[in-house]
């Protein structure tokens, strides 16, 4: 361990004494991070495009408004005030502190130090705001950690919350603690160097939070420079690494929340789409002279696997951050049934990822003989749904688990006729008597004579 630190100090002394080398390392790391991120994103886009086409580009003004309100404005988050307010702190901190990251990138590429400091008083204001926000982010993150580790809220457990989803959440929070701590320590060291009159560390910035770390830092200039540089590198490399963690994590919602709210259903929640392929067949049945347009040979009614869902439903699955607000408001789940809307979304995503891995390994025509229905989501789950829309209402980023449940039911009913006897009886009652119960149509108006 001791020699490991010696090595780091040795390497950093070389990097610090040679700004050109530092610039090259920075540009390489930055480029590598962007390339790796692009590769991951392209895979996710490919997986989302496994889904069927759906046109969701109507009413653009309303879509922009929804995105601004729900994703940027976090309007649905505060339905649960504690989590909602803490989330807004972390989120606002995250967005605004990214202005600081912009400065770090410029400094890294051009070998400058605090390049925006020419802004003078406004720069001081910016740095001061970042520091306060960083502190609030830490506060929020500690509350989140406490909710998961100490209070162990029920919402964060459940059958679908296996080892990985649980640790994913903790990793994200720990990374945020580390990044914010590095940011504040970097500022503190910088401030101390400024006060000591070290060269390159010109007076810039205002440090309302990190000034309290000052007494904890050593006074030796070289050690301070090491701390400042180490935190600087840790902060920016940490951010680049975190960026590349996103596509493998539930934290990806920070990106997909925006398109997801933009493409979300605008119709009333109770409106379920009318299947066009069915309309053609029904019209042809009611009117023999109607000629339905030709449909694709492999077209199925409803969904058995993720390719039968549309791409918005698949994007929903990648957007899910597993918060469990849907499941905790689901009447079926509350009363102990197997159904959990969060699991529906996670299963859809996991199945999509599995198909993606199959494509990578065996090419795009490979079939593993598995499917979303049965191998991931059971019949018992889909038939427990009351279609009450509580999950859709609860989702802070407008995910629609209900539409997936309905498409799976459609497959079970229309492709397989695999449905419980009482529902079959209901169907035949409607067909034969025009009512879901076994009553005679002739008696329909009897209520008026009572």
């Amino acid at each position: 361990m001791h020699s490991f630190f010696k090595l780091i100090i040795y390497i950093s002394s070389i990097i610090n004494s040679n700004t050109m080398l530092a610039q090259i390392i920075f540009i390489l790391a930055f480029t590598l991070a962007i390339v790796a991120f692009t590769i991951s994103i392209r895979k996710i886009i490919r997986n989302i495009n496994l889904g069927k086409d759906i046109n969701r580009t109507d009413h653009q003004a309303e879509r922009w408004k929804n995105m601004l309100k729900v994703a940027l404005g976090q309007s649905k988050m505060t339905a649960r005030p504690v989590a909602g307010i803490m989330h807004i702190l972390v989120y606002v901190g995250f967005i605004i502190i990214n202005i600081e990251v912009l400065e770090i990138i410029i400094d890294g590429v051009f070998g400058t130090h605090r390049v925006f400091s020419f802004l003078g008083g406004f720069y001081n204001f910016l740095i001061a705001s970042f520091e306060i926000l960083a502190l609030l982010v830490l506060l929020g993150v500690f509350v989140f950690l406490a909710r998961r580790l100490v209070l162990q809220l029920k919402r964060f457990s459940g059958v679908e919350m296996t080892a990985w989803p649980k640790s994913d959440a903790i990793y994200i929070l720990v990374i945020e603690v580390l990044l914010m701590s590095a940011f504040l320590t970097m500022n503190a060291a910088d401030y101390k160097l400024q006060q000591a009159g070290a060269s390159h560390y010109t007076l810039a910035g205002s440090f309302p939070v990190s000034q309290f770390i000052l007494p904890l830092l050593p006074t030796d200039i070289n050690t301070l420079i090491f701390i400042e540089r180490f935190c600087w590198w840790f902060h920016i490399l940490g951010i680049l690494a975190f960026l590349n963690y996103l596509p493998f994590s539930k934290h990806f919602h920070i990106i997909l929340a925006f398109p997801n709210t933009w493409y979300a259903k605008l119709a009333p929640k109770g409106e379920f789409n009318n299947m066009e392929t069915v309309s053609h067949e029904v019209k042809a049945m009611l009117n023999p002279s109607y000629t339905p347009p030709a449909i694709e040979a492999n077209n199925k009614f409803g969904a058995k696997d993720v390719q039968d869902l549309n791409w918005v439903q698949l994007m929903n699955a990648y957007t899910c951050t597993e918060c469990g607000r849907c499941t905790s408001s689901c009447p079926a789940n509350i009363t102990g049934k197997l159904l959990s809307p969060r699991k529906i979304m996670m299963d859809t995503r996991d199945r999509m990822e599995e198909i993606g891995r199959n494509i990578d390994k065996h090419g795009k025509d490979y079939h593993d003989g598995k499917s979303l229905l049965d191998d991931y989501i059971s019949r018992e789950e889909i038939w427990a749904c009351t279609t009450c829309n509580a999950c859709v209402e609860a989702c802070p980023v407008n995910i629609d688990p209900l539409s997936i449940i309905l498409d799976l039911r459609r497959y079970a009913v229309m492709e397989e006729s695999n449905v419980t006897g009482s529902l079959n009886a209901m169907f035949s009652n409607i067909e034969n008597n025009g009512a879901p119960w076994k009553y005679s149509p002739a008696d329909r108006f009897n209520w008026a004579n009572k």
Partner: protein
Amino acid sequence: MIQVPTMADMMAAGEEPEVLFWVGCAGSYDERAQRVTQAFAKILTHCNIKFAVLGTEENCTGDPAKRAGNEFLFQMQAMMNIEVLNGYNIKKIVTACPHCFNTIKNEYPNLGGHYEVIHHTQLIQELIDAGKLKTENGEPFKGKKITYHDPCYLGRANGVYEAPRKVLEVLDADLVEMKRCKQNGLCCGAGGAQMFKEPEKGKKDVNIERIDDVLESKAEVVAVGCPFCMTMMKDGVKHFEKEQEIEVLDIAEITARNNNLI
């Protein structure tokens, strides 16, 4: 007994109604829901609304089939109903069933059925606002604790939360909200075709969970606006043997009773 004109009668007389009352299957056949249908028909008659029903020409909207995944059956029902409705040149529909309301309002237009569709609680609210129904002297419910259970297909599905509550506000009663209400309202357990099947395995039935909310609110009257909710809440109250203490009534029945119509 009340005089309820059918569309066929109206057409034969060369007349057109202001509004078609879509009764729905539960409202037509279910004994408990029939009393709601009668109460609402009495309200319409009392307010001199020129209305009609389809009578034996009415047919299931297809809602339970659609929610259960049988899109074929749904669209068959929808297209047949649209043919009847368009044949009578129907412009406006009122119904006491949120499932019929949602289906006709949202899912029929795309299949060729364009109507103005309102829920009966919305029409009752309009009638109160227009001064056609009593707005005070709520003797039958004076001081009673009343809570309103939001039907999923009226509330979350279509955003109608206020009309039923406004109707209850005129009663001079003590309105209380359950802890889960409006957007967060808990389902009665009957939606999505659950009405027609046994529930999946679980710790308890959804309506029992919901009655816990009712008991907590200490309400003496549970106001509902949906025939399925009516059945579920009634069964739930019965489960706790609270039939003597808690009455489950539709908004139409409450209004009719407040106006001495039933």
